């Protein structure tokens, strides 16, 4: 009888397409927005994630997330180094700086200053050049997307010059640093040079990056640092979540994405529900004839569920395919959406949501079929 159910469904092409469109639309909206949301939230903490060597971040006790940090005292670095369980600790400078190309293009960059000796925190994804060359005078590393923003359409080339806060800077390496939330360009340079670029007051130390000694957990060492120094110390993972949580709780981003997702679900249920209801209503006589001829309610419900399942699978497949192509093509570097991807668990979650949409949409229809009086076929 499954064949009968499918022939009934495909036989009504207009409604079948309407149903598949409804599910596909909802899936596309929910998956695309869900993926964007996850990408955006991940991006808020990309600077933390890109620093792979350190597993502890030490910062001002008041700091709420990575982008609001009051500088530490220079002496704090030594205090952190003195805490038992700390394998090493290095300074990390983070600020925003105006950049200008020689032909006058201006933009804003995230300037990251790395420990002069070790360059800890530099991007591990080097597209062109060598990070060791950062030790040369005026040397900086710039991310590929930032490079293409400053010199659109031009080939990657080392030795290019630009002005960083009116100081000369020369590109010696081009990196694949993860896109940051607050700036379009990411520049790495040694710590002391970063201070030359942006002379400020006495205190310039944004963060101390540290690593837990072997056999110690970052969280435990972070607690020891906090206890000994009175500073705020968090494991990289905790700091990443603290930052993401801040954006989740304190910005309208989750609400605006959430609204679109809810809208997708509601519109999906509405389109699919109305169309399915129409489909079932129009075929009520056929269901009635089958019922009169002795098809049990259970099998009849099975037929309707099969019809719904096929619609759900087709729609979900198309919607997911469209969303996946969006993430495939729209997020190519150096575009603004670079680094965004569709996590498998967003797709899986949306599969559950689609099943829910289809089930809810079919609810009224199933009821109609169940209460249907087979005697209508004699009318």
């Amino acid at each position: 009888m499954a064949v009968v159910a499918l022939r009934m469904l495909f036989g009504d092409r207009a409604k079948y397409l309407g149903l598949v469109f409804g599910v596909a639309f909802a899936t596309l909206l929910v998956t695309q927005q869900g993926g964007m949301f996850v990408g955006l939230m991940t991006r808020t903490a990309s600077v933390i994630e890109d620093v792979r060597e350190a597993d502890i971040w030490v910062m001002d006790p008041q700091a709420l997330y990575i982008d609001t940090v009051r500088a530490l005292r220079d002496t704090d670095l030594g205090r952190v180094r003195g805490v038992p369980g700390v394998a090493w600790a290095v300074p990390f400078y983070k600020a925003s700086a105006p950049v200008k190309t020689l032909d006058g293009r201006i933009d804003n960059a995230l300037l990251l200053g790395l420990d002069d000796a070790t360059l800890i925190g530099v991007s591990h994804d080097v597209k062109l050049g060598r990070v060791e060359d950062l030790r040369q005078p005026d040397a900086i590393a710039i991310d590929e997307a930032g490079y293409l923003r400053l010199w659109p359409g031009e080939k990657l080339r080392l030795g290019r010059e630009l002005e960083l806060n009116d100081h000369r800077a020369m590109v010696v390496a081009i990196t694949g640093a993860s896109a940051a939330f607050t700036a379009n360009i990411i520049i790495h340079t040694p710590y002391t040079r970063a201070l030359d670029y942006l002379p400020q007051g006495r205190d310039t130390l944004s963060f101390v990056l540290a690593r837990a000694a072997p056999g110690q957990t970052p969280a435990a060492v972070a607690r020891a640092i906090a206890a000994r120094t009175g500073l705020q110390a968090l494991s990289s993972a905790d700091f990443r979540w603290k930052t993401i949580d801040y954006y989740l709780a304190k910005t309208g981003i989750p609400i605006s994405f959430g609204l679109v997702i809810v809208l997708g679900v509601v519109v999906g249920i509405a389109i699919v529900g109305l169309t399915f209801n129409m489909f079932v209503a129009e075929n009520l006589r056929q269901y009635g004839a089958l019922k009169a001829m002795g098809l049990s309610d259970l099998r009849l419900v099975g037929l309707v569920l099969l019809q719904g399942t096929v619609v759900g699978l087709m729609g979900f497949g198309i919607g997911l395919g469209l969303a996946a192509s969006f993430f495939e093509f729209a997020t190519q570097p150096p575009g603004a959406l670079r680094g965004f991807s569709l996590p498998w668990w967003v797709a899986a979650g949306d599969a559950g949501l689609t099943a829910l949409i289809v089930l809810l949409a079919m609810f009224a229809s199933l009821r109609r079929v169940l209460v249907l009086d087979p005697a209508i076929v004699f009318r």
Partner: protein
Amino acid sequence: MAIAVDCHDVTKAFGTGDARVQALRGVTFAAAAGEMTLLVGPSGCGKTTLISAIAGMLTPDAGSIAVFGADLRKLSRGKLTAFRAKSVGFVFQQFNLLPALTATENASIPLRILGASAGEANRRAAVLLDRLGLAAHRDRFPDQLSGGQQQRVAIARALVHEPQLVVCDEPTASLDAQSGQAAMALLRDLAVRADRAVIVVTHDSRIFSFADRIAHMADGRIENVSIQDAEAA
């Protein structure tokens, strides 16, 4: 005569209060195996209600209905559904073919409901369609068939699972005179068998001649039953 369908004092009312309609007012009626019984009477007299009850689709308020010895009152909802699937063949005025299925597939549905494979069901349906003169139309869809052809597909569907009871509600009402006569002739030919009862509801006097027995109904009751010599038809 071998009694196949035995109704005793069956009553059925629809609605309540002012809207209450007493459709059946104590119907006592029998149909024999090996015969075609016509149930005739003016519109609204309760014919459809009566055969719906006989076919196990409607529960009477009172009275008993036995079909080949089985007391329908004693059957649960599920058993009634199974009874319809196995023992009853239906022909409706509105044909009620599934538009997305071919003639063969439509005729094979009762076998599919009973669990036969598609191949077996289609094969048996095809044999019957051939006998109904539809060999050339087996793969057509209902909207590619004339009314008479559609009703012949419906007759094949009513007979394909060899039910003990065949009920037809106004089978010629949607057909022109000639197609109606042809459909009735085929129905008589193929449906009437020694071990089967065929009940045809109609108010079309042009087909009375096909009956072995005619039960006249009026206002929810059987008024009288006349025996016919169907061979004279």
